[in-house]
């Protein structure tokens, strides 16, 4: 999992007070009916209150049950409120960014007028200069600028945005740090990126996902089933003279219906979106997050995802008769003043191999140019050290009347065949050897792909490299397949082919030419640095612009579903023990031999019912952290995951409440002597 979200503007935890107030507000009937399971508990509360007032049961017991039921509803509301509050904290900081934006709009004649940002329409042109805030989402049509996007991404390092490139998108509310840009507005007021983000994180009009709807049906049916069980019970019991109090019936009903998962379901949904946001991924819908869990194939760009993206020195190959140290020192000298990443990596490698030379005095650095295709250093005493492409160095050495050993070409070919780039080093008239520059594979990526494979997710690498290089990197990184010399349309074709085979495909993209593929993919993760077209086409945006984030998104999606499934199982498994607590209590008065079923040896019928109800209520807040965080997820095969989760939440769900209810009973009888 990515851990690069330390700066994410997510307010954690400390918002319990508003959440508490919200829990009471959510008691309003129009909110209560949205959740059928908890609505039944709420109705039960009212019913027990009426029954107690009417004197159908002892006041002490009646009010205790009523109170516990009310608290159960409040706990469920609280779970939802806490999840919402977390999002709202983030929304508040986003809102501050949106507030009072002013725009300098250009009309057709190029004249500037200052207008409030809310008056901007798509295709308006606005000017933004150093120190000003970008008034709306748009695309740079003129100029280059560094921009601080901290308000949106929480990342304080400035980013470069430039017209006519794949990094031309700007977000309203972000700050231009340098230069002047002209931006073409792309979003309607109220539909900007920020607006969308705010409404998403607040979870205000959250759409239920397909899986959530399906699970909702299951929970509603279970609730109805138990309603039937409880409503028919007094008639069946009446035949053998068992009179069952209405308060006891409500207690039984509430214990049986899946209140645990029912109470936590909205919180789980909101928390899933928040978890994605915490990883700085903005999903356009909750569905997108869940679909990520179903993905079978990941299309990954090589650069930035699998490799660091710049070539780095990985080995020195000295020619026959040349000392290794001689080559390394020459390479080091030629690169000391070289500002390119390649040059720096040569210095780093040489230092690692033990070369301790420092920058000599009076050295003259010769920079790389497209004409010479080599760089190096001129030292006092006519010492000319160069590094560069083989043909450039051969030309250079020959011009000094030097000799090019026949061995060189073979060495260069060896390196090239590995998919690496050879760089030849010469000192004066002598060719010393070859530096191997390779595309370095990111650390840990191989293990990550292995984990994905375990989860049944196939990885496909996309690269512009030739087949040889691509095959080598693919083998090193452990991807399942690769597309070499890829053109943008290859991505689209591959996605269609995989989808025709019934697989769900996820991909990352940033350029405008990625847009069709992003739209076609089941999960399209657009880079925040990318063009507006790409961001519109995808169904998620990564604010960190880190292509490797796709892997985290898959895990979040899976975790989301597992959390729901596990808590449903747990909720159902709990019912077994509740039956053993309540049924003997229910029938004890009329049928003394029922005491044999009181396997937990609970003190009294009253205490048994109250203990079961208290457990039923307390388990909701106890599981709020789990609902918000998601159950622990270790990538593994489906069978393995099922086995683990069944053991923890199924078997554990049967056993745990037996112990907990007994414990509550002991405490109750000690404290109140019930």
């Amino acid at each position: 999992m990515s851990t690069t979200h330390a700066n994410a503007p997510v307010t954690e935890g400390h918002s319990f007070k508003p959440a508490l107030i919200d829990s009471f507000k959510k008691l309003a009937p129009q909110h209560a009916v949205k959740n059928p399971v908890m609505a039944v508990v709420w109705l039960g509360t009212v019913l027990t209150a009426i029954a107690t007032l009417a004197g159908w049961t002892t006041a002490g017991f009646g009010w205790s049950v009523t109170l516990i039921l009310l608290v159960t509803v409040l706990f469920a509301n609280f779970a939802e409120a806490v999840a919402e509050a977390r999002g709202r904290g983030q929304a508040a900081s986003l809102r501050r960014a949106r507030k009072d934006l002013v725009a300098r709009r250009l009309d057709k004649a190029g004249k500037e007028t200052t207008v409030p940002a809310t008056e901007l329409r798509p295709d308006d042109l606005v000017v933004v200069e150093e120190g000003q805030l970008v008034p709306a989402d748009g695309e740079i049509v003129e100029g280059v600028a560094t921009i601080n996007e901290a308000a949106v991404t929480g990342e304080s390092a400035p980013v470069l945005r430039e017209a006519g490139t794949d990094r031309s998108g700007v977000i309203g509310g972000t700050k231009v740090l340098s230069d002047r840009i002209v931006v073409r507005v792309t979003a309607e007021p109220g539909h900007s990126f920020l607006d969308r983000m705010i409404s998403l994180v607040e979870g205000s009009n959250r759409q239920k996902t397909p899986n959530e709807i399906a699970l909702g049906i299951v929970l509603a049916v279970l609730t109805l089933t138990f309603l039937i069980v409880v409503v028919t019970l007094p008639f069946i019991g009446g035949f053998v003279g068992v009179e069952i109090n209405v308060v006891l019936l409500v207690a039984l009903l509430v214990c049986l219906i899946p209140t645990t998962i029912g109470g936590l379901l909205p919180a789980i949904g909101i928390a899933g979106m928040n978890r994605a946001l915490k990883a700085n991924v903005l999903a356009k819908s909750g569905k997108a997050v869940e679909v990520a869990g179903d993905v079978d194939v990941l299309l990954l760009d090589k650069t930035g995802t699998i490799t660091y993206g710049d070539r780095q020195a990985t080995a020195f190959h000295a020619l026959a008769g040349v000392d290794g140290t001689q080559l390394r020192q020459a390479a080091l000298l030629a690169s000391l003043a070289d500002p390119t990443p390649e040059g720096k990596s040569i210095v780093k490698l040489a230092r690692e191999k033990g070369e301790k030379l420092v920058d000599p005095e009076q050295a003259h650095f010769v920079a790389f140019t497209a004409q010479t295709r080599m760089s190096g250093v001129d030292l006092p005493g006519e010492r000319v050290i160069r590094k560069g492409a083989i043909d450039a160095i051969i030309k250079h050495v020959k011009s000094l009347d030097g000799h090019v050993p026949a061995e060189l070409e073979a060495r260069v070919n060896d390196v090239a065949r590995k998919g690496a780039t050879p760089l030849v080093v010469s000192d004066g008239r002598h060719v010393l050897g070859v530096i191997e520059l390779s595309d370095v594979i990111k650390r840990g990526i191989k293990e990550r792909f292995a984990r994905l494979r375990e989860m049944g997710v196939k990885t496909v690498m996309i690269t512009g490299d030739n087949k040889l290089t691509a095959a080598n990197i693919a083998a090193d990184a452990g991807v399942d397949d690769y597309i070499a010399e890829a053109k943008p349309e290859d991505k689209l074709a591959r996605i269609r082919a995989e989808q025709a085979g019934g697989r769900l495909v996820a991909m990352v993209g940033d350029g405008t030419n990625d847009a069709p593929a992003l739209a076609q993919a089941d999960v399209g993760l657009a880079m925040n640095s990318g063009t507006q077209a790409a961001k519109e086409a995808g169904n998620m945006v990564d604010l960190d612009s880190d292509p490797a984030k796709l892997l985290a998104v898959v895990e979040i999606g899976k975790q989301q579903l597992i959390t729901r499934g596990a808590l449903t199982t747990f909720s159902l498994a709990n019912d077994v023990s509740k039956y053993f607590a309540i049924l003997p209590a229910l029938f004890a008065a009329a049928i003394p031999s029922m005491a044999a079923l009181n396997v937990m040896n609970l003190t009294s019928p009253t205490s048994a019912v109250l203990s079961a109800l208290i457990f039923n209520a307390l388990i909701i807040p106890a599981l709020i952290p789990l609902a918000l965080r998601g159950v622990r997820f270790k990538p593994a095969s489906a069978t393995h995951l099922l086995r683990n989760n069944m053991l923890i939440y199924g078997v554990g769900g049967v056993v745990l409440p037996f112990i907990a209810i007994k414990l509550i009973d002991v405490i109750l009888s000690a404290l109140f002597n019930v």
Partner: protein
Amino acid sequence: MVEPLLLLSLLLVVGWPLGRYLAAVMRGAPMRSDALFSWIERPIYAALGTRPHVGMSWRGYAGAFLLSNLLLAIVVWVIFMTQAWLPLNPDGVPNMSWDLALHTMVSFLTNTNQQHYSGQAQLSYLSQMTGIVGLQVVTPVMGLAMVAATLRGLFGGRQAMSQDSAQVKATDAKVVVDVGNYWADVTRATLRFVLPLCLVLSALLTWQGVPATLAAGPVASPVEATAEFKEQKIPLGPVSPMVAIKQLGSNGGGWYGPNSTVPLENPTPLSNFLEVFAIALIPVSIIFMVAPFTGRRKFGAMVLGTMLTMSVLTAGISLWSENNSATTLDVALMEGKEVRLGAEASALWASTTTQINNGSVNLMLDSSAPLTGMMSMINMLINAIWGGVGCGLMQFLVYLMLAVFLAGLMTGRTPELFGRKIEGPEVKLLAILVLLQPLVILGFTAITLAIPSITGNSNPGFHGISQVFYEYVSAFANNGSGFEGLGDATVWWNVSCAIVLALGRFPSLVIPLAISAMLASKRRAPEGSGTLHVETPTFALTLIGIVIILTLLQFMPVLVLGPVADHLLLTELLAR
């Protein structure tokens, strides 16, 4: 313990080849006996106006199933109400009342054979042979046809199954899923599978002494003759063919009212063994059919393994309860017990007959130990431990889909069955089935118990609850066995049971077929290590867990008030 083990091993040994043969029959594969059967089948197809190789959509298939049931219903109901005037009535049996005829018709139409009449006294030979035996032959085959069609749907329809699964292109949503030809399925399975088996069993039973005649029965004088009871008419008839189909077709409605407790229906220990064996034979063969029929050997093995595990588990408890539980040891409790064949044979039959959904009896459950009765109820509530012909596997598929839904979520993917997603619309249909069972069974049990004038049971107290509950459970499961001791030949019992019978049969056969066809039209994802495999022991255990939990949660209160309280009370009385 010899008999249960012998029974089980024999079932597995015979069921395996029989299942392979049945798969070939249901696939419509060419076979050597084609020449023999096709000259019977061709005229039938011509009369039905169907071309046997042309497939149907799920709507067409279900429609044909419902239409054929409706037609049979009308014919049989009329025969029962007019039998006195029709031929083949040597004993002069009168017409049936409308409600008893309705109940009897629905009961046999739903492959249940719950009997509120006493066979030998209230049905003419014509009624027995058409309404009873006719339906006993054809209704199990209908269930078999429905489950075959559902399996075709689950694997993408006949088109997809006939090709190599690897080469199947993404199914075009507009293509109607071909689930087979209903008329051809029923005809082939009846002629090539069920009737030959009946012939063999009937011959064996006749050899053991079960009557097979069309003559009127003899008159005998009782040992202790009194003024009112000077002579007894011994009813005979074509008993052995009927007993054969009654046992084989998960029917259970005997020629005689007391069923296989009557020596004439079940004369010897060997006949007893044969009859128990016959109960399970076709349902077990159907499970063996799954693998060759669907081409998924592991799936077939999972279904077999799961059912076998549950079967051994519940049969074990029944046997223990009848032999060893606290309520079996006392002589005072021996009233009504089956002593001719013994406790073990009784419990084994009780367990088998309710697991298989047959419903024939060789003991009176009313007199068995309360916990034995409870296990029989649980078997019927689950209704998927082997289960009735076709219906058992169908119910198993329903549990399978429920388990896939829950287990699928726990593996972090949208639940998929054989690569096809189970989503909102499918869950909604499943929800109807989940809800229907408690609604119907508990609803009618509560109404009946709450109004003493309609209850009509012979026992007050907990045992009375068991009697009423059992009757509706048996009706809903289309089992047909009775706890007995119930004055159930009343208008209320007849009509309410007829409703329960129909609700237990038709939705549970049609809805899974509809779901399978909905799944078949979805995009099929390849199965990998990330997708849930239903063919693993882990999943099988999950499935068993879900079956037990679901049944327990829905029916534990009434089971506690009925058999459990009964057991506790008896234990307490014995202790004094």
